[in-house]
């Protein structure tokens, strides 16, 4: 691990102004990403993983959002960065790809125009050079006949090809960090395997760090080296992937892993996490997961701090005494 992180997020708190008041969507989110590192953020819908990604690029509506804390990237605080500065970061230093490539691409411009826009914004090149570079980028993401696709519109491409085109746009300027928000969720499993392979290959080749936002623990296991679990707007665990899968320290991480069908005998009752994520309006002051936690005790009503435990960072005061099961079947765990 090198000394200076590429991205260092400290105490990120995002709140939305709603009807005179405000609700806190995330609170005290801190994590860092080293150059070239692949970090996964997991959590269920509404845990704040997507808005954390969006806030890093200033993509949340400014008028109705308040972002507290800081996110240092190459000596610059991304939080509150003026739009004129942010334009030099977006696409050039940090790129983002989204779940649904059809809605992320503009339907009235060709793929080539959309890649060209990025190239022309960040580099001093003419249109002809931009075109060559765009075709090269399309070829590098494994698109057959890139020159033809360059002049195609998004609707003329399949879902997998659109996501490849998105990746080409995101990586054409060789950014230092790629934020990938559920990039394979809308794709079939065979296409997902192709896209994951491609992302891994490109990130290794260009030294791009990956911040992989997904709810799919399998995808995290195969792509990332570190896994951050978010719950109800907080980071509850931050650990090396392999260690988190074998011996998670937070009951929520363990619960997520245990609810996967592969761990239960066919037809057996699947373990699940009872209850629901608390709503933003009535967030408990103590542990946010307590209401759904099988290991709850009275002291859980006190606010929880995130602290180191066996190489992890864990937001649970009982981390020392609880021995929680991970993603292994009993047989695998015994072996």
């Amino acid at each position, binding site marked *: 691990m090198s000394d200076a992180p590429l991205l260092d997020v400290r105490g990120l708190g995002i709140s939305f102004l709603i009807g005179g008041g405000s609700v806190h969507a995330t609170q005290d989110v801190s994590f860092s990403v080293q150059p070239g590192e692949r970090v996964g953020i997991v959590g*269920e*819908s509404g845990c704040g993983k997507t808005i954390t990604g969006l806030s890093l690029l200033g993509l949340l509506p400014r008028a109705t959002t308040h972002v507290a804390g800081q996110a240092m990237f190459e000596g610059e605080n991304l939080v509150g960065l003026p739009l004129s500065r942010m334009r030099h970061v977006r696409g050039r230093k940090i790129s983002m790809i989204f779940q649904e490539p059809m809605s992320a691409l503009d339907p009235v411009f060709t793929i080539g125009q959309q890649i060209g826009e990025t190239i022309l914004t960040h580099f001093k090149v003419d249109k002809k050079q931009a075109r060559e570079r765009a075709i090269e980028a399309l070829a590098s993401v494994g698109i057959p006949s890139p020159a033809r696709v360059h002049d195609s519109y998004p609707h003329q491409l*399949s*879902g*997998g*090809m659109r996501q490849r085109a998105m990746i080409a746009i995101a990586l054409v300027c060789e950014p230092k960090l790629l934020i990938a928000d559920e990039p394979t969720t809308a794709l*079939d*499993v*065979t*296409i*997902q*395997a*192709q896209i*994951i*392979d491609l992302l891994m290959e490109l990130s290794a080749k260009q030294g791009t760090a990956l911040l992989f936002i997904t*709810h*799919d*623990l*399998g*995808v*995290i*296991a*195969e792509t990332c080296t570190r896994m951050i679990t978010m719950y109800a707007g907080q980071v509850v665990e931050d650990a090396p*992937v*392999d*260690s988190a*899968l*074998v011996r998670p320290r937070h009951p929520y991480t363990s*619960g*997520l*892993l245990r*609810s*996967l*069908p*592969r761990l*239960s005998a*066919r*037809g057996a*009752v*699947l*373990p*699940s*996490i*009872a209850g*629901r994520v608390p709503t933003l309006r009535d967030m408990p002051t103590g542990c946010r997961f307590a209401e759904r936690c099988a290991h709850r005790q009275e002291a859980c009503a006190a606010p929880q701090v995130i602290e180191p435990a066996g190489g992890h960072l864990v937001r649970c005061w009982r981390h020392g005494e609880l021995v929680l099961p991970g*993603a*292994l079947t009993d047989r*695998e765990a015994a072996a």
Partner: protein
Amino acid sequence: MSAPIVSVADLRIHFPTQDRRETVKAVDGVSFDVMPGETFGIIGESGSGKSTLGRAVVCLLKPTEGQVKLGGIDPYSLPSAELRRRRRAFQIIFQDPNAALNPRMSVLDSIREPLDIIGEGSRAERARIAQEMLERVGLRPEFGLRYPHELSGGQKQRINIARVLTVRPSVIVCDEVVAALDVSIRADILNLFAELQREFGLTYLFITHDLGVVSHVSSRIAVMYLGKFMELGPAEEIAERPLHPYTQALLSAEPIPLPSSMRATRRIILQGEIPSPTNPPSGCRFRTRCPFAQAVCASEMPEWREAAPGRFVACHFAGEVTGHPIDANTTKEAIA
């Protein structure tokens, strides 16, 4: 052995393209039987025709050729009043729980609607059954007065389940019913399906692209590709000893949440994408993406044969390619 409750024989469902010059062969010659009380899983990628097949089973689509028999009877041979009465027993639940509920109807009204359409019993009686089903799927009585936008995805899917239960079906086609749900909610809903199956003796046709889900719930699994079945057999055998190269590729493409030291390294990455169903490849439909394809695969359509008791497969080399463990490197070279 009892008689099959759903019997599909050489089913073909073709649609004209928008300009009517070509034909989309969404389902192109599929045969299988579903026995009462079993969960029959159908797995495949988008565009494989699995949803079309599911809709045909509940008479939402009329076969172009071939036959679907429900409880031993061809529904299209019946007079329309009789068809209406009979098809009650065959229900379907869809993927998107939002789209399936009317946003302007309260939950209880939505659940009662199927009974109102059937017109059985008094109004009070129907309301009582709706209330009972609401509670049976694990929702508190006060949910009945709410509207869909006040509910989470999992709760909405519970309501869709309650709706179909009101008419006491014997078969439910579950078309990607948990795809839109979070992992922990997904487990709850799958558990509910299993409970209801035991309690009401239901038969399920479980259509999904999720291997983990399909192998957990199903007794038998069919693997579909481009309008045809590639393989069919008992769930655990398909999951552990797949015979067809497509099934093998599907299984190996599934990302598994295990530490790197415990993951199998072999992985078959299929090149390209599913071809267009308007003009499927000659011979074996999978051959354009198959790492083992030979000349014969292009010239001859592989026969749908019983490779072992209860295990059907359509591949010229089914026994042989599985005889040897696949080495990731040689496979990748073979494709490249």
